[in-house]
């Protein structure tokens, strides 16, 4: 109950921050870039529209998750409102979970709105709706949930600017972790290789949530991968939130 209240308040706060205005930017990017690139390209224009649309949802969602997530805890500490909150019978863990769920709710609503706009644009170009696209968007949302947890973790112990940088680095690492696998193949067996293998497993693999290529090119997606990727997202998010809780419970606000 306490968590729900904090979550709903976080959502209201996001609304008050006029975050929904981002939607207009999304519509502008989708409409202008899709049309512009589709005109200039050599090839299938619908493919471009799908690519731009999915990339925009992912990018705008990521920006929201990072920019808002990194300021969530800091703002409460900066404005001293955290003293009022924690003086009440609210545990720090509940406070964090509430903040997290509030932001996830905001991102969910934004993703739904962006998806609606995207499907409409796609429909106006093709006069059909490719429902498979929703699968790619669903996994983009899972990725955004994970990124929100990342932003929240960093916001528990650093300033918003640093937390934003860390979160962006995390995002990049997450999408480039496959290069570690290539490096492992080139490194001779030994301590170095073991360290790299450990890093490869522990570092996030956000490509597990990237089904954009498969959806756009209508490639088969292994069902087992969908299931494992979902579980991976849930467990990794839980891991990040647990870490955030461990850090936050020792945090001094003075």
């Amino acid at each position: 109950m306490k968590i729900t209240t904090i979550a709903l308040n976080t959502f209201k706060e996001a609304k008050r921050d006029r975050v929904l205005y981002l939607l207009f930017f999304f519509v502008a990017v989708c409409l202008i870039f899709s049309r512009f690139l589709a005109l200039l390209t050599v090839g299938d224009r619908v493919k471009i529209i799908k690519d731009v649309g999915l990339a925009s949802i992912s990018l705008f969602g990521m920006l929201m998750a990072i920019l808002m997530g990194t300021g969530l805890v800091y703002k409460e500490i900066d404005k001293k409102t955290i003293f009022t909150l924690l003086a009440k019978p609210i545990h720090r863990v509940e406070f964090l979970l509430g903040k997290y769920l509030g932001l996830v709710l905001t991102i969910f609503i934004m993703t739904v709105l962006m998806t609606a706009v995207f499907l409409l644009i796609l429909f106006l170009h093709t006069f059909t709706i490719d429902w498979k696209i929703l699968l790619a968007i669903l996994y983009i949302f899972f990725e955004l949930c994970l990124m929100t947890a990342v932003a929240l973790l960093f916001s528990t112990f650093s300033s918003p600017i640093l937390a934003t940088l860390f979160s962006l680095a995390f995002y990049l690492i997450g999408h480039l972790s496959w290069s570690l696998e290539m490096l492992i193949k080139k490194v001779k067996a030994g301590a170095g290789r073991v360290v790299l293998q450990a890093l490869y497993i522990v570092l996030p693999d956000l490509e597990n949530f990237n089904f954009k290529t498969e959806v756009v090119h209508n490639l088969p997606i292994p069902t087992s991968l969908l299931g494992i990727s979902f579980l991976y997202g849930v467990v990794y998010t839980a891991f990040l939130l647990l870490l955030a809780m461990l850090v936050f419970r020792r945090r001094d606000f003075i």
Partner: protein
Amino acid sequence: MEAKIEATVKNNGEKFLSHQRNLLVVFLIISLLLFSFLKIQTDKVVRKKVPGSSIIYLPSGKHLKYMTFGYSSLIADLIYLWAIQYYGTYEIADRFNYLEHIFSIIAELDPKYVDPYEVGALIAVYEAHDPELAFKILDMGLEKNPDMWIFPFQAGHIAQMNLKDFDLAREYYRKAMEIPGAPPITKRLFAHAAFKTTDYQTSWETWKEVYETAEEDWVKEIALNHLYRIKAAVDTEALTEAVKKFQERFGRLPADLNQLVRAGLIREVPTDLDGQEYLYDPQTGEVTPQRVWWKR
């Protein structure tokens, strides 16, 4: 009593916090192990990929340049690196369809970037087996970089080695020769291509110039060998023609080359560059130089 209660509350509170911390750590370790296991499982699932598929959808370089916000050189680098990976992926059967498009994008984004023209031409010739496309890419390079001799030089090499089109090779070598900084070998290749197109006059004059201007002895030797070859070719062709006319006039082959002089078909019997007489076979009418030109 009050102090005792306070101590008990404090003690219980610390115990609760410590218990909670331990619980969080346990969950943390469990989740770490679990997502590591799941990560290994996801790696086992094979996903279908379309390597480099998006590269073919790039708009033309002229338009793309405006969308790079001043980072056109960086984008050119990235597309070039991407293109190398793309053309190294043998599973994409139709990857060469967009070769010109991709390399023209790079050329528009960063016209002074030399490597992509060279590599693009190499891919066109040796991977796509399309020399015409290689010429297009290299011509594009020369158009954007008129001071770079390497483009016509490479095009000349492709025309000579891959197409055996010496007229085209000669034209490209000529272009390369005219660009300051072209290596001396360009002139020699031009002279060789001219010889192959039977333009002996140009070939002779160029080799002569090479001989006269060369500083190294081995270059002079090469030039002399080629001059020997040109003179031998000119002389043997003239003698063979005269032998043919002699046969038409007298119904037989001449016994030796002096008979051609006596018949008024040539003014004198020429000798090769070393002053040696040409070999004549009265049975076949064939005229050959005494020495192999490159073994002199």
